């Protein structure tokens, strides 16, 4: 039960994008079409899950026992970068169509602050291994949800008459603000 709460909390109540401002770059950059936003969300979720697992192991099996916690930023970001590289190679080997669909987004994921944020939050919240896995899944689901909703709205927005000075980033930010307001309705439903 607690695990489900952690998942929902990370996905909806404390959505990474709309409540913690993590992963804004792809959220604004890759959200103009649903057909690219959704795969991007899935790829990010996959990397988030792996990151949660690997960084948890590194933190608890290497950094803490050897008392080198100050290396956590350096090691976490290296883990994220190499995971992304690894996932890219793996997908390329296993499924060509999937690689063509996701390929261009994978390098972008390295600099997605949501991934490093996830690793740091897991340390900060002192989660157990299983909790960390569910937290990673929830964060990924939340990111996918936010970026897909955003893409859906932006596809409609294409047809709207937006003032010239607000086209592009400004109107996207305002839409994100309204989305954040809507997500505030979930606030406090669960606190984990």
């Amino acid at each position, binding site marked *: 039960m607690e695990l489900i709460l952690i998942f929902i909390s990370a996905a909806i109540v404390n959505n990474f994008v709309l409540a913690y401002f993590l992963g804004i770059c792809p959220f604004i950059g890759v959200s103009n079409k649903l057909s690219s936003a959704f795969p991007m969300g899935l790829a990010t979720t996959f990397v988030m899950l792996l990151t949660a697992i690997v960084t948890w192991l590194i933190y608890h099996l290497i950094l803490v026992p050897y008392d080198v916690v100050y290396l956590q930023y350096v090691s976490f970001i290296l883990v994220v970068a190499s995971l992304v590289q690894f996932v890219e190679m793996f997908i390329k080997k296993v499924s060509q169509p999937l690689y063509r669909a996701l390929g261009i987004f994978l390098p972008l994921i390295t600099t*997605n602050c949501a991934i490093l944020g996830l690793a740091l939050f897991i340390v900060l919240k002192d989660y157990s291994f299983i909790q960390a896995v569910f937290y990673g899944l929830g964060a990924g689901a939340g990111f996918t949800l936010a970026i897909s909703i955003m893409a859906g709205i932006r596809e409609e927005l294409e047809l709207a008459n937006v003032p010239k000075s607000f086209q592009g980033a*400004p109107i996207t930010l305002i839409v994100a603000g309204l989305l954040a307001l809507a997500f505030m309705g979930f606030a406090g439903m669960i606190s984990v």
Partner: protein
Amino acid sequence: MKKQVSLATEYTKGLWDQNPVFKQVLGMCPMLAVTVSAMNGIAMGLATTFVLVFSSLIISSIRKLIPSQVRIASYIVIIATFVTIVDLVMRAQFPALSKELGPYIPLIVVNCLILGRQEAFSSKNHPGRALMDALGMGSGFIIALTSLGAVREILGSRTLLGFQVLPDGFEPWLVMILPAGAFLTLGLMMGFLNFMVLRKKTREEKELLSRHLQEPKMSLAKGQEA
């Protein structure tokens, strides 16, 4: 051969023409997350600038030694090292501030502004030029963070840098300090700035056009004189 621009221009371009936030839409995570007050904005801006300046200096100095296949990995290790330095120094010397900025200091590592400048500039230019570029981009980032922080602080808590600037009768707009307020304010600010730029441009064009229409001979004569 690329046209060489002066060192001063390398600095000033970051302030406005290529402002990392308003023009390039980079570094949004810290921009939105920590700007509940102007002071936080300044502190975050300074921390980011510190990391940017030192990473740029080091990377531009050793740019020819790094094999291009591992350049991104090398960059992020160097950036992460400087971020850890900032984090440790802040926790040791400024505990109150480090509590306030909390988990957003480590996220400077993935600020796309920093990695972006390394890839686009430091890896191709000598250290002096990279230093000016980093200082300029950092200043531009500080300007953006501080102005957003100031607007949100004034409207959201009636204060600026901790001093009350709006009367007690003014009900603070709580939405300003909530996440939604950050998105809305930045969106409106960017839209407004675009609007000003566009208006200035159209006015200049109109002026040019009307002058051209009214005094075709004068402008022609002037043109010849020049």
